[in-house]
């Protein structure tokens, strides 16, 4: 495919709509073509900007409780139905219905399992987009006693930073970042010439990510995630998983 042909497919790439083969072919092309690579990065940034702006409104708490009340009421009404004789005669149908519900729940969980790596993929996006931005690091310091207090009042939680003396890792700094409207900390570490992002967010159900490590084959980023003291940690880097694991261990020691 020529460069011009690819130009019409860039948005599809950014929307993750290319087939695996197409994606591979495109990445090979983009490695050779700075024009396509720059355009793709710009399109991805534009998409992120729209996402940030578009995720704007949260449902008011009253609406949530009103809906819950409605649902509970419907549920209670329906529970009384078994008192009606016709249902008593139909245990098999009821069991079939229950089995269907179980199947649906199972399928739903299965589907959500498949979906989870995507949210890890979003962290890879965040890593790239933040580093590509004009201010990749908001607090530039290798001193953990500077970086940690900087986050006071900027993120709604606190965390500990390890002493990196004697380890191959260095602290570069940090910045505030957002994921699904939640403010969080992004710490930037260095390892030789590699850059590692450590994202820290309050652990919310949306962040319940099951695989603890993940290689995004489409972007070849490695990710590791765990929870600790009610916080969700996500490490993203282009380094190998083993070295990334060492940093994870250091962070977990706190």
């Amino acid at each position, binding site marked *: 495919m020529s460069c011009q042909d690819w*130009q*019409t497919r*860039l*948005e*599809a790439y950014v*929307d*993750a*709509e290319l087939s695996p083969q197409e994606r591979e072919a495109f990445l090979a092309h983009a490695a050779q073509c700075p*024009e396509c690579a*720059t*355009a793709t990065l*710009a*399109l991805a*940034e*534009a*998409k*992120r*900007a*729209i*996402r*940030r*702006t*578009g*995720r*704007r*409104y*949260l*449902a*008011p708490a009253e*609406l*949530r409780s*009103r*809906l*819950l009340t*409605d*649902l509970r009421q*419907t*549920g*209670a009404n*329906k*529970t009384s*139905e*078994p008192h009606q004789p016709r*249902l008593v005669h139909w*245990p098999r149908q*009821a069991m079939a*219905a*229950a089995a*269907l*519900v179980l*199947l*649906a*729940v199972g*399928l*739903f969980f299965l*589907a959500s399992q498949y979906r989870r790596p*995507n949210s890890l993929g979003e962290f890879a996006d965040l890593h790239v987009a933040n580093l590509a931005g004009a201010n990749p690091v908001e607090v530039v310091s290798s001193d953990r006693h500077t970086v940690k207090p900087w986050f006071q009042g900027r993120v709604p939680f606190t965390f500990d930073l390890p002493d990196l003396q004697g380890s191959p890792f260095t602290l570069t700094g940090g910045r505030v970042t957002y994921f699904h409207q939640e403010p969080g900390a992004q710490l930037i570490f260095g390892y030789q010439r590699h850059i590692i992002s450590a994202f820290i967010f309050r652990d919310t*159900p*949306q962040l319940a990510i099951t695989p603890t490590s993940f290689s995004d084959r489409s972007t070849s980023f490695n990710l590791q995630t765990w929870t600790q003291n009610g916080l969700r940690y996500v490490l993203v880097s282009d380094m190998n998983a083993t070295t990334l694991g060492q940093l994870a261990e250091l962070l977990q020691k706190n």
Partner: protein
Amino acid sequence: MKAASDRVREFENLALPLLDPLYNFARWLTYDTAEAEDLVQETFAKALRGFDAFTPGTDFRAWMFRILRNTFLTSRTGLQAKLTVPLDPEDEVSATVTWETPEVLALASATREALQDALAALPAAYREVVLLCDVEEMKYAEIAEVLQVPIGTVMSRLARGRKLLREALGGERHFVARKEANKRR
């Protein structure tokens, strides 16, 4: 036997995590807090009533968004919005992309307020597609299911909507960059 109330709980487990996204979408459609709340509430009520018609294992999110959108389209604001939406002459034409990198960058670096205004100013037919794709991160096929249109239409509306956004934001501030780009051609 509690199958029926289990069914409600099952619905609750599926639907409640979608509350924020649905409400957000409703706000972007209606621009009104009270109306968005009503819309979401009606959507939940309709969806629960029709939950038996939902095929387990298929896309529940697309199903919910479809109900919300259809409910919106039959509301007063929705009917008005429908009237102001231009027909899609380019729906049949495949999405030909006519973007310039500086224009795209202008969008990416626009202030939140500017982008918000530009999104709000988009005709509803384009705004909804852009929101579903970029904000809800739905696949084209999923969006097609929400809107009940062919995938090709989703793609052309998306391309057109994004183009309109870029045009709205590529204003004077980036005039120089665009002029340079034009010179290069």
